[in-house]
């Protein structure tokens, strides 16, 4: 996997091998980088890059703190470190280059190349197209190189055309600068851009991964000034529309500014083209800089430089001219020229000398390539014999093979090569045969023990070692055979599972299907699965219900989804719906949790907490958590109640503590100094009992053992009135409740009923009665 961005391990400077996996270390590294980038945010030249990295931070966190994504990132880092994917095509390219050097390539040749490399013809054609594109890119580059001096001559154009086997006109069309004839009066040579500007453009282009302003504006390098101008303004309004001002947009904004400024006139545009050409020669210039460190260029350096100039498509003459101009700009002298300059009086052009030097070098190189065969014929024979001897002396076949291959690799092809290659082929096939036999032996043993996987592995490792030998086909066949045996064995095991529980059977069936994507028994196993569908459903449903009961929605959902993934029948529809419901419940459970947290956050403010729940019920009626919410509400109500009670009890105690009318008696009792009666401190409601009818009230009083007394009774109406109505009265919070008295009678309203005299702490002072079936409180008294 490869990403279109910096690798995060590299960006954070974390170890890739072994990969850094400690989240703490990673978080530390991120923090460190964040601080560093923030500091660079307004750096004069690195600001935009820092902004880009800052913008990447959320992504960095997301990827680097997730184990799975991080693994991908490691892979990417490794693959970036060893980018060798293109290697395969190297030899194809070389052959293509040879075929195409004549300027064209025939269909027949394409077909032959395809056959030779075992590739489809299309791949070869794609390659050719790429070569063509590269050729024109190369032509552009060479034009650029020559344009660096400010203009291009007709001769140079012709030369480039010749070198690439294209029409002169095709080259001329691609020239963006002035064209002149050699020797013509020097036209005003354009100067490049200010280096500061050129650098700013280059830096911002590199942020976008582009190489030129033309590419930035998406036009050809030879587009008209008018088009460029228009494109620049279009780009400007396009970019200003983007709201996310990330580094890329910022870089684009800056580049648009440059485009507008540069593509205003032909003159400034030519300056840009020249700067661009110059920057292509950056490496060469750096080389020249090194060579000229002491203020002059030695002859031997010049020859080396001429060689490196060849990489840019310059011939010796051009290279020399370029180097000389460069040196002159820097105020350096060329050593060779200095001396020869004196001889110039004799009419010799110093340039010729240098050209001669360059040419001689080229000649020597050519000689090395083409004549070595003859020169070393004898020594070749000796080398071959030595290789054969040394090979024979090796103990292992591999050793022998290596010696011979090394020989072939290290020597140029000669008449002995074929012999050596023949020997190599012989050795290879012996090795292959030996390995095959070994594989067969160990596979046979494994298969006998029913361990077919090992047998397959034996041949697979054979194949890994000999991917395209003469025995490959047989090995593959063996693998197929053993795979089939494994399939058969596993299927039998499945069929024999009849008695096992349905879950493990289903797991085994599914496992089989997964393992044998082309298994021989897939249809049978599928049928087994279908046959087991209902049984599996019943088993699952039971478990699902159990989880649902416990509100473990995620587990329930997982089980539903398991079934749905396997089947498409009414049951799967049913479970699918169930799963949906559970997902809703799960979400609602989450809401509920949050609700409880919100309510808890209200702390002691029970009214606010209650409001939180009420708001929820109003906003989401009929959810699965309704009951729970209602329970919470009831709980809050109870807490409010008990808080009220606690308040009253406090009041009672405060009253007693004041030492007025009421004084504390034995624990839980209070004595009324005015009447001498002993009362329970808390009435039945404050004790936590709900209200009760008259019969229950009497029983409650009789069974009270508060303070160790057993003679509690219901008070008379007069006694009740005496504590609740005569000031200072006994504190009470039950403003809407009444207390049962001991006095009752029967009365007729529409039927005969028991009527009891009662006292309500607030309200009228006399004559209150209630039917005995009503619900009232008890405040017991003794004796």
């Amino acid at each position, binding site marked *: 996997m490869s990403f279109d961005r910096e690798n995060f391990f590299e960006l954070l400077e974390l170890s890739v091998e072994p990969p850094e996996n400690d989240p703490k270390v990673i978080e530390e590294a991120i923090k460190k980088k964040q601080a560093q980038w923030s*500091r660079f945010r307004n*750096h*004069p030249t690195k600001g935009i890059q820092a902004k880009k990295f800052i913008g990447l931070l959320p992504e960095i966190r997301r990827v680097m703190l997730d184990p799975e994504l991080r693994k991908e990132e490691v892979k990417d880092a490794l693959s970036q470190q060893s980018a060798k994917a293109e290697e395969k095509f190297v030899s194809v390219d070389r052959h293509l280059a040879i075929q195409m050097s004549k300027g064209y390539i025939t269909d027949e040749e394409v077909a032959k190349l395809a056959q030779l490399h075992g590739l489809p013809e299309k791949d070869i054609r794609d390659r050719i197209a790429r070569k063509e594109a590269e050729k024109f890119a190369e032509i552009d580059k060479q034009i650029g190189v020559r344009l660096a001096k400010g203009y291009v001559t007709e001769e140079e154009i012709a030369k480039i055309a010749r070198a690439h086997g294209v029409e002169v006109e095709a080259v001329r069309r691609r020239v963006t600068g002035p064209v002149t004839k050699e020797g013509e009066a020097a036209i005003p040579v354009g100067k490049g851009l200010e280096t*500061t500007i050129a650098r700013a453009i280059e830096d911002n282009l590199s942020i976008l991964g582009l190489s030129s302003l033309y590419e930035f504006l998406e036009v050809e390098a030879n587009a008209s000034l008018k088009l460029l101008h228009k494109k620049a303004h279009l780009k400007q309004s396009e970019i*200003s529309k*983007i709201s996310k001002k990330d580094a890329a947009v910022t870089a684009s904004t800056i580049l*648009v500014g440059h485009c507008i*400024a540069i593509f205003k006139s032909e003159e400034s545009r030519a300056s840009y083209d020249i700067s661009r050409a110059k920057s292509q020669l950056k490496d060469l210039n750096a080389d020249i800089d090194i060579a000229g460190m002491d203020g002059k260029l030695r002859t031997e350096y010049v020859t080396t430089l001429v060689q490196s100039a060849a990489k840019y498509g310059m011939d010796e003459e051009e290279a020399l001219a370029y180097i000389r101009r460069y040196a002159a700009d820097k105020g350096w002298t060329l050593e060779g020229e200095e001396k020869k300059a004196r001889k110039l009086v004799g009419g010799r052009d110093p340039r010729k000398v240098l050209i001669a030097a360059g040419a001689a070098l080229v000649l020597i190189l050519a000689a090395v390539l083409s004549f070595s065969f003859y020169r070393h014929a004898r020594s070749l024979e000796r080398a071959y014999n030595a290789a054969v001897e040394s090979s024979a002396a090796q103990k292992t076949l591999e050793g022998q093979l290596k010696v011979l291959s090394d020989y072939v690799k290290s020597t140029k092809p000669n008449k002995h090569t074929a012999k050596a290659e023949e020997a190599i082929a012989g050795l290879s096939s012996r090795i292959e045969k030996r390995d095959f036999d070994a594989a067969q032996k160990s596979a046979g043993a494994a298969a006998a023990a029913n361990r077919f996987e090992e047998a397959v592995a034996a041949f697979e490792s054979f194949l890994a070692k000999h991917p395209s030998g003469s025995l490959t086909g047989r090995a593959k066949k063996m693998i197929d055979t053993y795979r089939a045996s494994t399939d058969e064995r596993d299927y039998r095991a499945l069929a024999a599972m009849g008695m096992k529980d349905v879950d493990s059977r289903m797991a085994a069936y599914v496992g089989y299907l997964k393992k044998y994507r082309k298994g021989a028994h897939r249809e049978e196993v599928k049928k087994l699965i279908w046959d087991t569908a209902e049984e599996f459903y019943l088993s699952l449903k039971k478990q699902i219900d159990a989880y649902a009961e416990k509100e473990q929605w995620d587990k329930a959902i997982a089980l539903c989804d398991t079934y749905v993934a396997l089947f498409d029948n009414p049951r799967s529809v049913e479970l699918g719906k169930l799963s949906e419901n559970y997902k809703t419940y799960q979400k609602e459970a989450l809401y509920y949790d949050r609700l409880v947290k919100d309510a808890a956050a209200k702390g002691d403010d029970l009214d606010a907490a209650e409001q939180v729940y009420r708001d929820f019920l109003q906003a989401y009626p009929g959810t699965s958590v309704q009951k729970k919410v209602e329970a919470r509400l009831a709980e809050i109500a109870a807490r409010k109640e008990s808080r009220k009670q606690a308040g009253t009890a406090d009041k009672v105690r405060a009253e007693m503590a004041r030492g007025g009318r009421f004084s504390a008696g034995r624990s839980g009792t209070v004595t009324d100094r005015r009447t001498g009666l002993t009362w329970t401190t808390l009435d039945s409601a404050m004790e936590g009992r709900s209200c009760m009818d008259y019969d229950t009230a009497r029983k409650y009083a009789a069974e009270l053992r508060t303070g160790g007394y057993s003679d509690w009774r219901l008070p008379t109406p007069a006694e009740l009135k005496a504590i609740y109505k005569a000031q200072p009265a006994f504190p009470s919070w039950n403003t809407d409740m009444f207390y049962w008295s001991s006095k009752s009678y029967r009365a007729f309203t529409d039927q005969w009923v028991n009527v009891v005299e009662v006292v309500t702490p607030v309200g009228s002072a006399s004559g209150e009665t209630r039917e005995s079936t009503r619900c009232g409180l008890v405040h017991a008294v003794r004796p």
Partner: protein
Amino acid sequence: MTKQMKRIFGIDLGTTYSSIAYVDDFGKAVVVPNAENQNVTPSVVFFDGPNIVVGDVAKESAKLYPNDVVSFVKRSMGEPDFLFEHDGKSYRAEEISSFVLRKVAQDAEAHLGEKVTDVVITCPAYFGINEREATKIAGEIAGFNVRQIINEPTAAAIAYGSTESSDDKVVLVYDLGGGTFDITMIHIQPDAIEVICTGGDHNLGGKDWDDRIVANLVEEFHAQTGSKEDILEDPDTCQDLQLSAERSKKILSQREKTPISITHGGERVKVELSREKFEAITNDLMERTIALTHDMLSEAKKKGYTRFDEFILVGGSTRMPMVVNRIKEDFGIEPKMFAPEEAVAKGAAIYGWKLSINDSLIERLQRKIGKKVQKMEDLAKVDARHVEEAAREVAAETGYTLPAVKSSMVKVRDVASKSFGVLATNAQNEEVVVNCILRNTAVPVEVTQEFYTAVENQKTVLIRIMESETSDENVPPDHSREIGTAVLHLPPGLPEDTPVIISFTLNKEGRLHLTAVESSEQRKVEVVIETLSVIQGEELREAKARAQNLVVH
């Protein structure tokens, strides 16, 4: 100053320099000098051990302690991942800005002998929701009651409108500051100051001109010494060059050339920078301001404004001769330089003064007519006699002239600097941003638009609120920025295509509110946009607590 009027200060919180102003007893806006007796204070913060130093001293310290000094934080306002680390503590742009605010306010307090409590702070018109919120929070961390955030060009126009004759005219305010560029068209009328259109780039300012000089100095150093070292890697050199660059830029506004010396690693290189060269290496930056100006003008044309009367230059960077020259060349009008460094703070102060006079006017009027007057806009409905009378009373009581008091009734109308909309799916089933409030519409504004549910029985609608730069009604999602979300819960059983009505309200301060109503049962959700890129919650509380214990020097 009378008792019942609260003094509201205006603060120009700039990228490179900040300043504070107030309206004196004669109704005139005055910039208050800082402790160093300068009208502007560098927006630079120096963490000197436990002390926090702001201003010139901090800026000069940058050379010696480059790692303890932070500047240009305004460019990172609203950037969630910008963190300045010092001594194990991280500071957000808001908090660092609050130190600058405290410094200018503190110095003003010392100078005037009066507490600064209420402030109006300015920000570039081009700031979006997040950046504005961040600016307000910076003020709150500094402990102020931030009465309003107003746009810098609007402030400049207020200052300009209050000094010039109050004819009806259309002006362009070209505001090139230390870090931001704003271009705004403003219609100044006798009774109103109205922003027509605004544009700009909040990453384009004097600093970019400085940076070019820095880059050029590096090239020169390389050329003269033959070294290829990136001398900016050295924080001392980097800071030193930045300071020299700013200084040379200022000199080049007066002279044709300036000598600069570069010292690095024991080597000393002398460079002469000419104005011509300076202009050559910054030409593209200048071009960008011109291109943005043209963009804004064509926007204004759509609103029927096809001419302007004056071209006003605000912001220190407009002192560069190339600005005046280039504008003359392109627009054929002689631009007017108007108190480049002070106009914004003064305008903010005048605006604050209007707010407080308005407060007392409204209070009086309420007493007179016996009913509530919410804002100045409501004055139109009140009997003119009452207004006149109230103004007379306020004038008598405060000592300001009657025209001055009346001028406080001038209305200030601004426009939205961004478009706001929601992410929706169009008929082709592609995601698209539907803009409800278009850029450059007058604020406050409320816009209501109908959307439809996508499927039958849809339970929720996720409303994703997007900000974008164009005034187009439909914008592709990757051209806009998500600034908040809201969830609307729908009752069950709604058919497909049930209308959902979304209303956007953008108030005067550029704050966005959103209401969504599902039409069948009138269910609604109301949200204040949570600005994600701004310091908030626990972090904000911590910053505020920290601010109370800090002394700024």
